[in-house]
């Protein structure tokens, strides 16, 4: 059992580090991104990676409450991406 537990713990640590690195790279693209589309894309990527981080936190702590959080973050991320894109496209969100 200890070998499997060790493997799971190491996989969790590696997954945390990788998703955090992905988040940092998306943040760099948000900073340097030359066009507006790139910035919207970087924000959308950061929301998706944040959902991954919340799910990893739920596995690490063994708590069920985090899934409601990640569902809410997923919905808010989609709505904010569409709102930002529509604002750039039409100059207004709800016409």
């Amino acid at each position, binding site marked *: 059992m200890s*070998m499997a537990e060790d493997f799971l713990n190491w*996989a*969790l640590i590696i997954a945390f580090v990788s998703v955090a690195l992905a988040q940092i790279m998306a943040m760099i693209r948000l900073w340097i991104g030359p066009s507006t589309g790139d910035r919207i894309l970087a924000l959308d990527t950061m929301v998706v990676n944040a959902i991954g981080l919340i799910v990893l936190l739920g596995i690490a702590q063994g708590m069920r409450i985090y899934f409601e959080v990640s569902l809410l973050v997923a919905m808010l991320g989609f709505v904010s991406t569409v709102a930002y894109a529509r604002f750039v496209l039409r100059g207004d969100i709800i016409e």
Partner: protein
Amino acid sequence: MSFAEIGAFVVGICLLIGAFFALVGSIGLLKFNDSMTRLHAPTKVGTIGVGMLLLASMIYSWVFGEGWSMHELLIMSFLFVTAPISANFMAKVNIHRRACDTPPSPPRDETWSTLNVPEADRDIEETVETPVN
């Protein structure tokens, strides 16, 4: 090997695959050199990476927790449905802001509707320089 050991290995492998895909998606977002090319990396690869992380969480709660949980399936289906929609919106933003090559002209109309300028705004369009990017 007991059931819990096999479950722990499966969860770990799913976690590693998902984290690898999420990392590759963000590397593509950072390294590609065109707006439309950059759109490819995170909207497909990153979504499948987070889907694998959610699958790992599902198997974890099945093996170690209290039975199957449908929350992750809900989040996964929501992500998989909304990712192409937001990618389509961002591609339209790229076309609208002229951040990419202009697509070939449509067969019947004069121009694409997102590039069309209304009749009343023609003189504004000519005097004000449209911002590139």
